[in-house]
Protein backbone atom coordinates (compact mmCIF):
# COMPACT_ATOMS: atom_id res chain seq x y z
CA UNK A 1 0.00 0.00 0.00
CA UNK A 2 2.82 2.42 0.77
CA UNK A 3 6.18 2.50 -0.92
CA UNK A 4 8.02 1.13 2.04
CA UNK A 5 9.95 -1.91 2.99
CA UNK A 6 9.97 -3.99 6.12
CA UNK A 7 13.62 -5.01 5.98
CA UNK A 8 14.45 -2.96 9.04
CA UNK A 9 11.01 -3.15 10.53
CA UNK A 10 10.56 -3.65 14.22
CA UNK A 11 10.23 -7.28 15.19
CA UNK A 12 6.62 -8.16 15.84
CA UNK A 13 6.33 -8.73 19.57
CA UNK A 14 3.75 -10.73 21.44
CA UNK A 15 2.93 -7.70 23.53
CA UNK A 16 1.99 -4.53 21.67
CA UNK A 17 2.15 -2.36 24.77
CA UNK A 18 3.27 -3.05 28.29
CA UNK A 19 3.15 -1.07 31.52
CA UNK A 20 5.23 -2.18 34.46
CA UNK A 21 4.51 -0.51 37.76
CA UNK A 22 3.57 2.74 36.02
CA UNK A 23 2.91 5.54 38.44
CA UNK A 24 2.28 9.22 37.84
CA UNK A 25 1.98 11.88 40.49
CA UNK A 26 1.00 15.48 39.75
CA UNK A 27 1.89 17.47 42.85
CA UNK A 28 -0.10 15.75 45.58
CA UNK A 29 -2.53 14.04 43.22
CA UNK A 30 -1.79 10.47 42.30
CA UNK A 31 -3.13 10.14 38.74
CA UNK A 32 -1.94 6.60 38.10
CA UNK A 33 -0.93 4.21 40.87
CA UNK A 34 1.38 1.33 39.97
CA UNK A 35 -0.31 -0.13 36.91
CA UNK A 36 0.87 -3.41 35.37
CA UNK A 37 -0.79 -4.07 32.05
CA UNK A 38 -0.02 -6.09 28.96
CA UNK A 39 -1.80 -5.50 25.68
CA UNK A 40 -1.43 -8.61 23.50
CA UNK A 41 -0.65 -8.03 19.83
CA UNK A 42 -3.78 -8.22 17.71
CA UNK A 43 -6.16 -7.57 20.56
CA UNK A 44 -8.69 -4.78 20.90
CA UNK A 45 -8.34 -3.50 24.44
CA UNK A 46 -11.17 -1.48 25.87
CA UNK A 47 -10.01 0.81 28.64
CA UNK A 48 -12.82 1.61 31.01
CA UNK A 49 -13.09 3.78 34.03
CA UNK A 50 -15.01 6.70 35.48
CA UNK A 51 -13.90 10.24 34.63
CA UNK A 52 -10.56 11.02 36.26
CA UNK A 53 -9.65 7.37 36.75
CA UNK A 54 -6.31 7.78 34.97
CA UNK A 55 -7.13 6.36 31.53
CA UNK A 56 -5.70 9.29 29.58
CA UNK A 57 -2.65 9.63 31.83
CA UNK A 58 -1.90 5.93 31.34
CA UNK A 59 -2.24 6.30 27.56
CA UNK A 60 -0.04 9.41 27.57
CA UNK A 61 2.67 7.55 29.47
CA UNK A 62 2.47 4.58 27.10
CA UNK A 63 2.95 6.97 24.15
CA UNK A 64 5.85 8.86 25.74
CA UNK A 65 3.96 12.16 25.98
CA UNK A 66 4.30 12.23 29.76
CA UNK A 67 7.19 10.92 31.80
CA UNK A 68 6.10 8.45 34.48
CA UNK A 69 7.04 9.25 38.07
CA UNK A 70 8.01 5.60 38.46
CA UNK A 71 7.78 2.39 36.50
CA UNK A 72 8.44 1.55 32.87
CA UNK A 73 6.48 1.40 29.66
CA UNK A 74 7.09 -0.43 26.42
CA UNK A 75 5.51 0.24 23.05
CA UNK A 76 5.83 -2.38 20.27
CA UNK A 77 8.88 -3.72 22.08
CA UNK A 78 10.58 -0.31 22.32
CA UNK A 79 11.33 1.28 25.66
CA UNK A 80 9.33 4.44 26.37
CA UNK A 81 10.32 7.25 26.24
CA UNK A 82 13.98 6.68 25.25
CA UNK A 83 13.44 4.44 22.22
CA UNK A 84 9.86 5.41 21.47
CA UNK A 85 10.84 7.04 18.16
CA UNK A 86 11.33 3.62 16.58
CA UNK A 87 7.82 2.52 17.58
CA UNK A 88 5.78 5.67 17.03
CA UNK A 89 5.80 5.58 13.20
CA UNK A 90 3.73 2.38 13.53
CA UNK A 91 1.39 3.93 16.07
CA UNK A 92 -1.63 6.04 15.25
CA UNK A 93 -3.17 7.93 18.11
CA UNK A 94 -6.07 10.19 18.90
CA UNK A 95 -5.38 11.43 22.42
CA UNK A 96 -7.30 14.06 24.37
CA UNK A 97 -9.45 15.06 21.46
CA UNK A 98 -8.53 16.12 17.96
CA UNK A 99 -5.85 18.83 17.61
CA UNK A 100 -5.90 20.90 14.42
CA UNK A 101 -5.50 24.46 13.22
CA UNK A 102 -8.76 26.35 12.72
CA UNK A 103 -7.59 28.42 9.75
CA UNK A 104 -6.69 25.38 7.65
CA UNK A 105 -9.11 23.02 5.93
CA UNK A 106 -9.40 19.42 7.05
CA UNK A 107 -7.32 18.30 4.09
CA UNK A 108 -4.59 20.88 4.71
CA UNK A 109 -4.46 19.96 8.37
CA UNK A 110 -4.01 16.30 7.49
CA UNK A 111 -1.35 17.10 4.88
CA UNK A 112 0.61 18.95 7.51
CA UNK A 113 0.32 15.97 9.85
CA UNK A 114 1.22 13.61 6.99
CA UNK A 115 4.41 15.58 6.24
CA UNK A 116 5.68 14.52 9.67
CA UNK A 117 4.83 10.82 9.20
CA UNK A 118 8.10 8.92 8.70
CA UNK A 119 6.50 5.94 6.92
CA UNK A 120 4.71 8.04 4.33
CA UNK A 121 6.60 8.65 1.07
CA UNK A 122 6.25 12.25 -0.09
CA UNK A 123 4.49 11.35 -3.33
CA UNK A 124 1.97 9.23 -1.44
CA UNK A 125 0.83 12.06 0.87
CA UNK A 126 -2.09 13.47 -1.19
CA UNK A 127 -3.52 10.00 -1.83
CA UNK A 128 -3.07 8.86 1.79
CA UNK A 129 -4.81 12.01 3.05
CA UNK A 130 -7.69 11.50 0.61
CA UNK A 131 -8.11 7.87 1.62
CA UNK A 132 -8.06 8.68 5.33
CA UNK A 133 -10.70 11.40 4.83
CA UNK A 134 -12.95 9.05 2.87
CA UNK A 135 -12.49 6.32 5.42
CA UNK A 136 -13.91 8.48 8.22
CA UNK A 137 -16.64 9.86 5.98
CA UNK A 138 -15.26 13.40 5.72
CA UNK A 139 -14.61 13.43 1.97
CA UNK A 140 -17.41 15.92 1.33
CA UNK A 141 -16.13 18.43 3.92
CA UNK A 142 -12.42 17.99 3.32
CA UNK A 143 -11.86 21.45 1.88
CA UNK A 144 -13.85 23.38 4.44
CA UNK A 145 -12.02 25.17 7.20
CA UNK A 146 -11.61 23.23 10.42
CA UNK A 147 -13.03 26.27 12.23
CA UNK A 148 -16.47 25.48 10.80
CA UNK A 149 -16.46 21.76 11.62
CA UNK A 150 -18.99 20.33 14.04
CA UNK A 151 -17.78 18.48 17.12
CA UNK A 152 -18.37 15.16 15.40
CA UNK A 153 -16.53 16.23 12.25
CA UNK A 154 -13.55 17.33 14.33
CA UNK A 155 -13.54 13.95 16.02
CA UNK A 156 -13.67 12.22 12.63
CA UNK A 157 -10.73 14.29 11.39
CA UNK A 158 -8.75 13.30 14.48
CA UNK A 159 -9.53 9.67 13.70
CA UNK A 160 -8.37 10.18 10.10
CA UNK A 161 -5.07 11.51 11.44
CA UNK A 162 -4.52 8.27 13.32
CA UNK A 163 -5.22 6.27 10.16
CA UNK A 164 -2.90 8.08 7.72
CA UNK A 165 -0.52 5.14 7.62
CA UNK A 166 -1.30 1.43 8.06
CA UNK A 167 -0.63 1.04 11.78
CA UNK A 168 0.43 -1.81 14.00
CA UNK A 169 -1.12 -0.11 16.99
CA UNK A 170 -3.94 2.42 17.07
CA UNK A 171 -4.69 4.25 20.31
CA UNK A 172 -8.07 5.97 20.48
CA UNK A 173 -8.87 8.03 23.56
CA UNK A 174 -12.63 8.55 23.73
CA UNK A 175 -13.07 8.27 19.94
CA UNK A 176 -16.86 8.49 20.07
CA UNK A 177 -16.97 11.84 21.91
CA UNK A 178 -19.42 14.13 20.17
CA UNK A 179 -20.29 11.60 17.49
CA UNK A 180 -23.84 10.93 16.34
CA UNK A 181 -25.08 7.31 16.28
CA UNK A 182 -23.91 6.90 12.68
CA UNK A 183 -20.47 8.16 13.67
CA UNK A 184 -20.34 5.77 16.61
CA UNK A 185 -21.19 2.95 14.24
CA UNK A 186 -18.46 4.09 11.85
CA UNK A 187 -15.92 4.03 14.66
CA UNK A 188 -17.02 0.51 15.52
CA UNK A 189 -16.62 -0.49 11.87
CA UNK A 190 -13.15 1.04 11.69
CA UNK A 191 -12.06 -0.72 14.88
CA UNK A 192 -13.39 -3.97 13.41
CA UNK A 193 -11.42 -3.40 10.20
CA UNK A 194 -8.24 -2.62 12.10
CA UNK A 195 -8.71 -5.76 14.19
CA UNK A 196 -9.36 -7.88 11.11
CA UNK A 197 -6.17 -6.53 9.52
CA UNK A 198 -4.18 -7.62 12.56
CA UNK A 199 -3.62 -4.20 14.14
CA UNK A 200 -3.75 -3.86 17.89
CA UNK A 201 -6.26 -1.30 19.13
CA UNK A 202 -6.42 0.41 22.51
CA UNK A 203 -9.67 2.29 22.92
CA UNK A 204 -10.79 4.15 25.97
CA UNK A 205 -14.47 4.83 26.19
CA UNK A 206 -17.33 5.32 28.57
CA UNK A 207 -19.79 3.79 26.13
CA UNK A 208 -19.83 0.30 27.60
CA UNK A 209 -22.03 -1.16 24.90
CA UNK A 210 -19.49 -0.01 22.31
CA UNK A 211 -16.64 -1.63 24.19
CA UNK A 212 -18.59 -4.85 24.62
CA UNK A 213 -19.35 -4.93 20.91
CA UNK A 214 -15.82 -4.28 19.66
CA UNK A 215 -13.27 -5.36 22.25
CA UNK A 216 -11.53 -8.64 22.90
CA UNK A 217 -9.86 -7.45 26.11
CA UNK A 218 -10.86 -5.07 28.85
CA UNK A 219 -8.94 -3.08 31.44
CA UNK A 220 -10.91 -1.35 34.16
CA UNK A 221 -9.37 1.58 36.01
CA UNK A 222 -10.56 3.31 39.11
CA UNK A 223 -8.83 6.12 41.02
CA UNK A 224 -5.63 5.48 39.11
CA UNK A 225 -5.51 1.76 39.84
CA UNK A 226 -6.18 -1.17 37.56
CA UNK A 227 -8.99 -3.13 39.22
CA UNK A 228 -9.59 -5.70 36.50
CA UNK A 229 -7.92 -6.69 33.25
CA UNK A 230 -8.18 -9.62 30.90
CA UNK A 231 -10.15 -11.13 28.08
CA UNK A 232 -13.67 -9.77 27.84
CA UNK A 233 -15.28 -13.22 27.82
CA UNK A 234 -13.28 -14.43 30.81
CA UNK A 235 -14.10 -11.35 32.83
CA UNK A 236 -17.79 -11.63 32.11
CA UNK A 237 -17.83 -15.34 33.01
CA UNK A 238 -16.07 -14.58 36.27
CA UNK A 239 -18.71 -12.03 37.11
CA UNK A 240 -21.92 -12.96 38.89
CA UNK A 241 -23.62 -15.29 36.44
CA UNK A 242 -27.07 -16.74 36.85
CA UNK A 243 -29.75 -18.97 35.47
CA UNK A 244 -32.79 -17.40 33.86
CA UNK A 245 -35.89 -19.58 33.95
CA UNK A 246 -38.93 -18.53 31.97
CA UNK A 247 -42.12 -19.76 33.63
CA UNK A 248 -45.69 -18.55 34.20
CA UNK A 249 -45.61 -19.95 37.78
CA UNK A 250 -43.26 -17.33 39.22
CA UNK A 251 -44.41 -17.62 42.84
CA UNK A 252 -44.18 -21.41 43.16
CA UNK A 253 -40.85 -21.39 41.28
CA UNK A 254 -39.41 -18.88 43.75
CA UNK A 255 -40.56 -20.95 46.73
CA UNK A 256 -39.13 -24.19 45.28
CA UNK A 257 -35.74 -22.72 44.43
CA UNK A 258 -35.34 -20.78 47.66
CA UNK A 259 -36.18 -23.95 49.53
CA UNK A 260 -33.08 -25.52 47.95
CA UNK A 261 -30.84 -22.76 49.30
CA UNK A 262 -30.47 -20.68 46.10
CA UNK A 263 -31.03 -16.95 45.78
CA UNK A 264 -33.84 -16.17 43.37
CA UNK A 265 -35.61 -13.05 42.27
CA UNK A 266 -38.41 -12.47 39.77
CA UNK A 267 -37.06 -11.70 36.30
CA UNK A 268 -37.64 -8.11 35.29
CA UNK A 269 -37.50 -9.03 31.60
CA UNK A 270 -40.33 -9.13 29.07
CA UNK A 271 -41.45 -12.66 29.87
CA UNK A 272 -42.42 -13.85 33.35
CA UNK A 273 -39.75 -15.93 35.07
CA UNK A 274 -37.08 -15.97 37.76
CA UNK A 275 -33.34 -15.34 37.93
CA UNK A 276 -31.43 -17.81 40.08
CA UNK A 277 -27.97 -17.12 41.45
CA UNK A 278 -25.90 -19.36 43.70
CA UNK A 279 -27.25 -22.58 45.17
CA UNK A 280 -27.23 -25.92 43.32
CA UNK A 281 -25.97 -26.31 39.76
CA UNK A 282 -28.26 -25.53 36.83
CA UNK A 283 -29.40 -29.14 36.01
CA UNK A 284 -30.40 -29.71 39.64
CA UNK A 285 -32.41 -26.50 39.73
CA UNK A 286 -34.27 -27.40 36.54
CA UNK A 287 -34.99 -30.90 37.91
CA UNK A 288 -36.12 -29.37 41.19
CA UNK A 289 -38.54 -27.06 39.41
CA UNK A 290 -39.97 -29.85 37.28
CA UNK A 291 -40.47 -32.03 40.37
CA UNK A 292 -42.23 -29.12 42.06
CA UNK A 293 -44.65 -28.98 39.15
CA UNK A 294 -43.41 -25.67 37.76
CA UNK A 295 -43.86 -25.31 33.99
CA UNK A 296 -40.37 -24.52 32.70
CA UNK A 297 -40.67 -22.88 29.28
CA UNK A 298 -37.00 -21.99 28.92
CA UNK A 299 -33.85 -22.09 31.01
CA UNK A 300 -30.62 -20.39 29.97
CA UNK A 301 -27.38 -19.25 31.55
CA UNK A 302 -27.05 -15.54 31.82
CA UNK A 303 -23.74 -13.73 31.47
CA UNK A 304 -23.77 -10.32 33.08
CA UNK A 305 -23.60 -7.42 30.64
CA UNK A 306 -20.39 -5.42 30.74
CA UNK A 307 -22.39 -2.59 32.21
CA UNK A 308 -23.32 -4.63 35.28
CA UNK A 309 -19.79 -5.94 35.66
CA UNK A 310 -18.45 -2.40 35.40
CA UNK A 311 -20.93 -1.19 37.99
CA UNK A 312 -19.97 -4.04 40.33
CA UNK A 313 -16.27 -3.32 39.94
CA UNK A 314 -16.31 0.45 40.20
CA UNK A 315 -18.97 0.89 42.82
CA UNK A 316 -17.11 -1.33 45.22
CA UNK A 317 -20.28 -3.32 46.00
Amino acid at each position, binding site marked *: *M*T*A*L*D*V*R*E*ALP*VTVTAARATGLRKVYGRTVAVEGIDLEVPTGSVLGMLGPNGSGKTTLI*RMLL*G*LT*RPTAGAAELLGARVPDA*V*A*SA*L*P*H*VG*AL*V*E*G*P*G*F*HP*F*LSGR*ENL*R*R*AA*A*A*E*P*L*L*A*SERIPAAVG*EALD*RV*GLGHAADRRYRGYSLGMKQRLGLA*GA*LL*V*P*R*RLVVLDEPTNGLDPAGTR*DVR*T*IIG*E*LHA*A*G*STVIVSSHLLAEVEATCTHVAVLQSGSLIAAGELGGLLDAGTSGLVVTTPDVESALVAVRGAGATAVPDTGAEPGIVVTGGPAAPEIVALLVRAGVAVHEARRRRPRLEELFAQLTEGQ
Partner: protein
Amino acid sequence: MTITTPTTPTTPGGLPERTAAPLGRLLAAEVRWVFRRPRTLITLGLFALIPILIAIGVVVADEGGPGLIGAVAGNGLVLPIASLTVALTLLLPLAVAMAAADAIAGEAAHGTLRGLLLAPVSRLRLVGVKAFGVLVVALAAALVIAVIGVIAGMVVVGDADGQMVTLSGTTLGFGAGIARVALVAIWVVGQLAAVGAVALAVSSLTEHPLVVLASVLGGLIAFGVLGAIPALDWLGPWLLTSGWSAGADALRDPIDLSGLGSSTLRALCYVAIGLGFTVWRMQRRDA
Protein backbone atom coordinates in the same frame (compact mmCIF):
# COMPACT_ATOMS: atom_id res chain seq x y z
CA MET B 1 -14.90 2.37 4.88
CA THR B 2 -13.69 -0.59 2.86
CA ILE B 3 -9.93 -0.13 2.84
CA THR B 4 -8.09 -2.98 4.40
CA THR B 5 -5.01 -2.22 6.42
CA PRO B 6 -1.97 -4.48 6.39
CA THR B 7 -0.22 -4.64 9.73
CA THR B 8 3.11 -3.73 8.28
CA PRO B 9 3.68 -1.53 5.25
CA THR B 10 4.98 -3.69 2.45
CA THR B 11 6.07 -2.81 -1.02
CA PRO B 12 9.14 -4.47 -2.43
CA GLY B 13 12.04 -2.29 -3.49
CA GLY B 14 11.09 0.66 -1.30
CA LEU B 15 13.23 2.67 1.04
CA PRO B 16 14.48 1.19 4.28
CA GLU B 17 12.09 1.98 7.07
CA ARG B 18 12.42 5.49 8.43
CA THR B 19 11.86 6.64 11.97
CA ALA B 20 11.82 10.32 10.98
CA ALA B 21 10.27 12.22 8.10
CA PRO B 22 12.70 13.93 5.70
CA LEU B 23 13.90 17.23 7.19
CA GLY B 24 13.25 19.17 3.98
CA ARG B 25 9.63 18.04 3.97
CA LEU B 26 9.19 19.10 7.59
CA LEU B 27 10.74 22.52 6.95
CA ALA B 28 8.59 23.04 3.86
CA ALA B 29 5.46 22.08 5.78
CA GLU B 30 6.42 24.49 8.56
CA VAL B 31 7.00 27.40 6.16
CA ARG B 32 3.74 26.64 4.37
CA TRP B 33 1.95 26.64 7.72
CA VAL B 34 3.57 29.94 8.74
CA PHE B 35 2.51 31.67 5.54
CA ARG B 36 -0.99 30.20 5.53
CA ARG B 37 -1.61 31.85 8.89
CA PRO B 38 -3.66 34.98 8.20
CA ARG B 39 -1.90 37.01 10.89
CA THR B 40 1.50 36.44 9.29
CA LEU B 41 0.26 37.84 6.00
CA ILE B 42 -1.49 40.79 7.64
CA THR B 43 1.65 41.61 9.62
CA LEU B 44 3.82 41.52 6.50
CA GLY B 45 1.29 43.75 4.72
CA LEU B 46 1.44 46.28 7.55
CA PHE B 47 5.24 46.23 7.45
CA ALA B 48 5.05 47.23 3.79
CA LEU B 49 3.24 50.38 4.92
CA ILE B 50 6.06 51.54 7.22
CA PRO B 51 8.47 52.85 4.54
CA ILE B 52 5.52 54.23 2.55
CA LEU B 53 4.22 56.18 5.54
CA ILE B 54 7.67 57.52 6.39
CA ALA B 55 8.19 58.52 2.75
CA ILE B 56 4.86 60.37 2.68
CA GLY B 57 5.66 62.02 5.99
CA VAL B 58 9.03 63.24 4.70
CA VAL B 59 7.56 64.56 1.47
CA VAL B 60 4.72 66.34 3.28
CA ALA B 61 7.11 67.91 5.81
CA ASP B 62 9.43 68.73 2.87
CA GLU B 63 12.38 69.68 5.00
CA GLY B 64 15.17 67.70 6.51
CA GLY B 65 14.84 67.53 10.27
CA PRO B 66 17.54 66.11 12.49
CA GLY B 67 18.44 62.44 12.61
CA LEU B 68 17.96 59.50 10.32
CA ILE B 69 14.45 60.30 9.11
CA GLY B 70 15.51 63.85 8.29
CA ALA B 71 18.30 62.43 6.15
CA VAL B 72 15.67 60.66 4.03
CA ALA B 73 14.61 63.95 2.45
CA GLY B 74 15.81 63.94 -1.14
CA ASN B 75 17.83 60.80 -0.43
CA GLY B 76 15.75 57.76 -1.40
CA LEU B 77 18.08 54.93 -0.47
CA VAL B 78 18.23 56.09 3.13
CA LEU B 79 14.51 55.34 3.44
CA PRO B 80 14.79 51.51 3.75
CA ILE B 81 17.55 51.87 6.36
CA ALA B 82 15.56 54.41 8.34
CA SER B 83 12.44 52.21 8.10
CA LEU B 84 14.29 49.11 9.30
CA THR B 85 15.81 51.02 12.21
CA VAL B 86 12.44 52.44 13.24
CA ALA B 87 10.69 49.08 12.94
CA LEU B 88 13.43 47.30 14.89
CA THR B 89 12.61 49.26 18.03
CA LEU B 90 9.26 47.56 18.54
CA LEU B 91 7.27 46.32 15.55
CA LEU B 92 9.71 43.78 14.14
CA PRO B 93 10.45 42.17 17.53
CA LEU B 94 6.70 41.97 18.12
CA ALA B 95 6.15 40.16 14.80
CA VAL B 96 8.93 37.70 15.58
CA ALA B 97 7.59 37.14 19.10
CA MET B 98 4.18 36.43 17.61
CA ALA B 99 5.65 33.82 15.28
CA ALA B 100 7.56 32.21 18.16
CA ALA B 101 4.44 32.27 20.34
CA ASP B 102 2.47 30.39 17.69
CA ALA B 103 5.36 28.03 17.04
CA ILE B 104 5.30 26.18 20.36
CA ALA B 105 2.77 27.68 22.79
CA GLY B 106 0.17 28.08 20.03
CA GLU B 107 0.67 24.54 18.80
CA ALA B 108 0.35 23.25 22.34
CA ALA B 109 -2.87 25.23 22.82
CA HIS B 110 -4.36 23.72 19.65
CA GLY B 111 -3.26 20.21 20.62
CA THR B 112 -1.18 19.97 17.44
CA LEU B 113 2.15 19.81 19.29
CA ARG B 114 1.06 16.39 20.57
CA GLY B 115 0.38 15.29 17.01
CA LEU B 116 3.84 16.33 15.85
CA LEU B 117 5.54 14.54 18.75
CA LEU B 118 3.51 11.40 18.09
CA ALA B 119 4.28 11.35 14.36
CA PRO B 120 7.08 11.27 15.61
CA VAL B 121 9.17 14.39 15.20
CA SER B 122 11.99 14.18 17.72
CA ARG B 123 11.99 16.96 20.28
CA LEU B 124 15.41 18.25 19.18
CA ARG B 125 14.34 18.33 15.55
CA LEU B 126 11.11 20.05 16.50
CA VAL B 127 13.06 22.94 18.02
CA GLY B 128 15.15 23.15 14.85
CA VAL B 129 12.06 23.22 12.62
CA LYS B 130 10.37 25.82 14.81
CA ALA B 131 13.48 28.03 14.95
CA PHE B 132 13.67 27.84 11.17
CA GLY B 133 10.04 28.93 10.85
CA VAL B 134 10.61 31.93 13.14
CA LEU B 135 13.77 32.88 11.24
CA VAL B 136 11.84 32.76 7.96
CA VAL B 137 9.30 35.20 9.40
CA ALA B 138 12.10 37.57 10.51
CA LEU B 139 13.70 37.30 7.09
CA ALA B 140 10.42 37.93 5.27
CA ALA B 141 9.60 40.95 7.45
CA ALA B 142 13.03 42.55 6.95
CA LEU B 143 12.89 41.81 3.25
CA VAL B 144 9.45 43.40 2.85
CA ILE B 145 10.58 46.60 4.58
CA ALA B 146 13.88 46.73 2.65
CA VAL B 147 12.36 46.09 -0.79
CA ILE B 148 9.32 48.34 -0.33
CA GLY B 149 11.67 50.91 1.22
CA VAL B 150 13.93 50.95 -1.82
CA ILE B 151 10.97 51.18 -4.19
CA ALA B 152 9.19 53.85 -2.16
CA GLY B 153 12.45 55.72 -1.76
CA MET B 154 13.00 55.76 -5.50
CA VAL B 155 9.39 56.63 -6.39
CA VAL B 156 8.23 58.96 -3.64
CA VAL B 157 11.39 60.62 -2.36
CA GLY B 158 13.42 60.24 -5.51
CA ASP B 159 16.92 61.23 -6.37
CA ALA B 160 18.07 62.43 -9.72
CA ASP B 161 21.03 60.11 -9.94
CA GLY B 162 19.76 57.27 -7.76
CA GLN B 163 22.50 58.01 -5.31
CA MET B 164 22.84 57.76 -1.56
CA VAL B 165 24.14 60.71 0.42
CA THR B 166 25.88 59.31 3.51
CA LEU B 167 25.80 60.85 6.96
CA SER B 168 29.45 61.75 6.34
CA GLY B 169 28.37 63.92 3.42
CA THR B 170 29.83 61.81 0.61
CA THR B 171 27.69 60.17 -2.09
CA LEU B 172 27.55 56.50 -3.01
CA GLY B 173 26.43 54.99 -6.31
CA PHE B 174 23.22 52.99 -6.63
CA GLY B 175 24.95 49.61 -6.34
CA ALA B 176 26.91 50.58 -3.25
CA GLY B 177 23.75 52.05 -1.74
CA ILE B 178 21.81 48.83 -2.28
CA ALA B 179 24.68 46.88 -0.71
CA ARG B 180 24.40 49.09 2.40
CA VAL B 181 20.64 48.44 2.56
CA ALA B 182 21.23 44.68 2.26
CA LEU B 183 23.85 44.82 5.01
CA VAL B 184 21.44 46.55 7.39
CA ALA B 185 18.66 44.12 6.50
CA ILE B 186 20.89 41.12 7.30
CA TRP B 187 22.01 42.77 10.53
CA VAL B 188 18.35 43.35 11.48
CA VAL B 189 17.57 39.66 10.83
CA GLY B 190 20.42 38.75 13.18
CA GLN B 191 18.98 40.94 15.95
CA LEU B 192 15.52 39.48 15.32
CA ALA B 193 16.94 35.97 15.55
CA ALA B 194 18.04 36.83 19.08
CA VAL B 195 14.55 38.05 19.97
CA GLY B 196 13.06 34.96 18.31
CA ALA B 197 15.31 32.55 20.23
CA VAL B 198 14.38 34.10 23.57
CA ALA B 199 10.71 34.15 22.55
CA LEU B 200 10.91 30.44 21.64
CA ALA B 201 12.37 29.74 25.06
CA VAL B 202 9.41 31.47 26.71
CA SER B 203 7.09 29.71 24.25
CA SER B 204 8.42 26.33 25.37
CA LEU B 205 7.39 27.14 28.93
CA THR B 206 3.75 27.90 28.34
CA GLU B 207 0.75 27.05 26.25
CA HIS B 208 -0.57 30.60 26.21
CA PRO B 209 0.77 32.56 23.23
CA LEU B 210 -0.09 35.83 24.95
CA VAL B 211 2.43 35.09 27.69
CA VAL B 212 5.17 35.03 25.05
CA LEU B 213 4.10 38.37 23.56
CA ALA B 214 3.83 39.99 26.98
CA SER B 215 7.25 38.67 28.03
CA VAL B 216 9.02 39.90 24.92
CA LEU B 217 7.29 43.27 25.02
CA GLY B 218 7.98 43.65 28.73
CA GLY B 219 11.57 42.57 28.23
CA LEU B 220 12.14 45.14 25.49
CA ILE B 221 10.69 47.94 27.62
CA ALA B 222 12.72 46.83 30.66
CA PHE B 223 15.89 46.75 28.54
CA GLY B 224 15.11 50.21 27.24
CA VAL B 225 14.63 51.59 30.75
CA LEU B 226 17.77 49.89 32.09
CA GLY B 227 19.76 51.20 29.14
CA ALA B 228 18.61 54.75 29.84
CA ILE B 229 19.76 54.83 33.48
CA PRO B 230 23.28 56.36 33.59
CA ALA B 231 24.15 54.61 36.87
CA LEU B 232 23.63 51.27 35.11
CA ASP B 233 26.06 51.99 32.28
CA TRP B 234 27.96 48.80 33.02
CA LEU B 235 24.84 46.86 32.06
CA GLY B 236 25.01 48.20 28.48
CA PRO B 237 27.09 45.45 26.91
CA TRP B 238 24.65 42.82 28.20
CA LEU B 239 21.49 44.41 26.84
CA LEU B 240 20.37 43.30 23.38
CA THR B 241 18.68 46.63 22.69
CA SER B 242 21.74 48.78 23.42
CA GLY B 243 23.19 48.02 19.97
CA TRP B 244 20.02 48.70 18.03
CA SER B 245 21.02 52.18 16.93
CA ALA B 246 24.00 50.75 15.05
CA GLY B 247 21.96 50.54 11.82
CA ALA B 248 22.78 54.17 11.10
CA ASP B 249 26.50 53.31 11.06
CA ALA B 250 25.93 51.75 7.64
CA LEU B 251 25.32 55.26 6.33
CA ARG B 252 28.78 56.53 7.23
CA ASP B 253 31.60 56.71 4.72
CA PRO B 254 33.80 54.82 5.23
CA ILE B 255 31.37 52.36 6.81
CA ASP B 256 31.74 51.85 10.57
CA LEU B 257 31.37 48.12 11.25
CA SER B 258 32.30 48.09 14.95
CA GLY B 259 28.76 48.73 16.25
CA LEU B 260 27.16 46.34 13.77
CA GLY B 261 29.74 43.67 14.57
CA SER B 262 29.51 43.85 18.35
CA SER B 263 25.71 43.90 18.35
CA THR B 264 25.65 40.90 16.00
CA LEU B 265 28.00 39.05 18.34
CA ARG B 266 25.72 39.89 21.26
CA ALA B 267 22.72 38.67 19.25
CA LEU B 268 24.45 35.36 18.57
CA CYS B 269 24.99 34.89 22.32
CA TYR B 270 21.27 35.47 22.89
CA VAL B 271 20.47 32.96 20.11
CA ALA B 272 22.71 30.32 21.69
CA ILE B 273 21.24 30.82 25.16
CA GLY B 274 17.64 31.02 23.92
CA LEU B 275 17.84 27.94 21.71
CA GLY B 276 19.84 26.02 24.31
CA PHE B 277 17.16 26.63 26.90
CA THR B 278 14.40 25.77 24.41
CA VAL B 279 16.02 22.42 23.63
CA TRP B 280 16.54 21.66 27.31
CA ARG B 281 12.95 22.54 28.13
CA MET B 282 11.38 20.70 25.19
CA GLN B 283 13.14 17.46 26.16
CA ARG B 284 11.19 17.58 29.40
CA ARG B 285 7.93 19.11 28.34
CA ASP B 286 4.69 17.16 28.63
CA ALA B 287 2.68 17.39 25.46
